[in-house]
């Protein structure tokens, strides 16, 4: 067991061998993602486009009043998140950025994590980055957060005493019961997951994994969650955004 733990870092996936979860899915599930008229995630994108234009809060302003046409202003934005927020002095993910906009600029209450509205807006914004390679800029300000996210990825935790890397670096492509273990690249979030029969965020997915290894999951929006998100996005750097992805 000691040898196995020591091997964790050695198992890091070489750049050229990285695969989106898409490539490990069945033909039928890939077809569902490929066809915008069949992809249930597009329902949320559609709803998000309506929310983008809807005035809200005491400010009586819509996202579109500041940002204009999302197809231009939000192009590629999701590929750069989580991004460092100079005021908060920490990285924020896309959901948090949307909520910061709501509370500060629109004077509207923050939307709850995994709420239909927040997922729809996030999916709509992230959709504008489809095909754009993930590019997480790392500098002195973000490095400590990235390092903590990396440490969490390689840290054994939970009653099963498993690290993320033991499945997703060392055993990807093999099976965990009936399911193929993916490399855990967050290229399609928010994703429509067949198991959920709904759209869900990366944090919801991370919580699923944490419960799976019988670790106590972090709260939605917890700094540890965002650090892990940051590391996963950095780890997937150069891979194309697929939002809204479909996954088993």
């Amino acid at each position, binding site marked *: 067991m000691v040898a196995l733990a020591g091997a964790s870092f050695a198992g890091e996936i070489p750049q050229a061998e990285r695969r989106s979860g898409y490539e490990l*899915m*069945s*033909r*039928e*599930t890939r*077809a*569902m993602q490929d*066809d*915008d*008229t*069949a992809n*249930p995630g*597009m*329902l949320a994108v*559609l*709803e998000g486009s309506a929310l983008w234009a809807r005035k809200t809060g005491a400010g009586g302003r819509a996202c579109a009043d500041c940002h204009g046409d999302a197809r231009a202003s939000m192009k590629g934005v999701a590929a750069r998140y989580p991004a460092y927020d100079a005021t908060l002095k920490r990285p924020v993910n896309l959901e948090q950025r949307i909520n910061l906009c709501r509370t500060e600029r629109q004077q509207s209450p923050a939307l709850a994590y995994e709420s239909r509205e927040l997922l729809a807006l996030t999916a709509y914004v992230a959709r504008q980055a489809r095909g754009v390679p993930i590019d997480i800029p790392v500098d002195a300000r973000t490095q400590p957060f990235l390092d903590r996210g990396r440490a969490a990825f390689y840290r054994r935790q939970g009653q099963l005493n498993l690290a993320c890397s033991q499945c997703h670096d060392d055993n990807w492509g093999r099976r965990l019961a*009936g*399911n193929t273990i993916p490399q855990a690249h967050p290229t399609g979030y928010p994703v429509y997951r*067949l*198991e959920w*029969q*709904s759209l869900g965020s990366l944090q919801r997915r991370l919580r699923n994994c944490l419960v799976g290894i019988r670790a106590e999951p972090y709260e939605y929006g917890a700094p540890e969650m965002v650090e892990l998100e940051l590391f996963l996005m950095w780890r997937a750097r150069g891979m194309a955004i697929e939002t809204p992805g479909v996954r*088993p």
Partner: protein
Amino acid sequence: MNRATSRREFLAGAAAGLGLGAVIAVTPAHATPQEMQDAIRKVVGSAPVTKGRVKLELPPLSENGNTVPLTVSVESAMTPADHVRAIHVFTELNPQPEVVTFRLRLPRGRVAVANALINVPDRTRRGEIVEIKTLISHPMETGYRRSQLGARIPRDIIRLFVCTYNGTEVFRAELHPAITANPFFVFSTVATESGTLTFQWTGDNGFSVTETAAITVD
């Protein structure tokens, strides 16, 4: 398979072909439990059930039983004299044997299922077969699940989907709890004249959504 948790849902697609009241059973007749036999008998009455002409496409191993794409094709000339009127899908491993019923009216081509995202070619030629895709947002709560506190979650499903072409019904699907959340249907019809396709979904708790799409036939 545990009956309480064996919810096998289908994204159903049906390709029209020939044969009246084509019946599709998922498993061989000899292995069929009484409930499914009864459900089939209710549809066909005393008519004999014969094999053949019906092709069912679904993955041998599904990545997730919650959403299984299904395509049904029936060999048929699809002429006014000889055409498919209905396709019924049954399964013996669900709490209810009925999965979905498609009803076809001429003119028609191929059939598949989806939420209020509609894709219809806006321009086509007379006599062309046009593919129509519909996707609607709906939880399709089966009525068999329980909350974390053990309370039964009441059924909330779409019961009926109807597509009309200039007022004439061309496609109808009767849905059961086996159908997945956000049902997706693909079907086809024959372009006869310019006009409007109307799509209506109705279901439990007063659910009713109507959408329209214009089609231009040259």
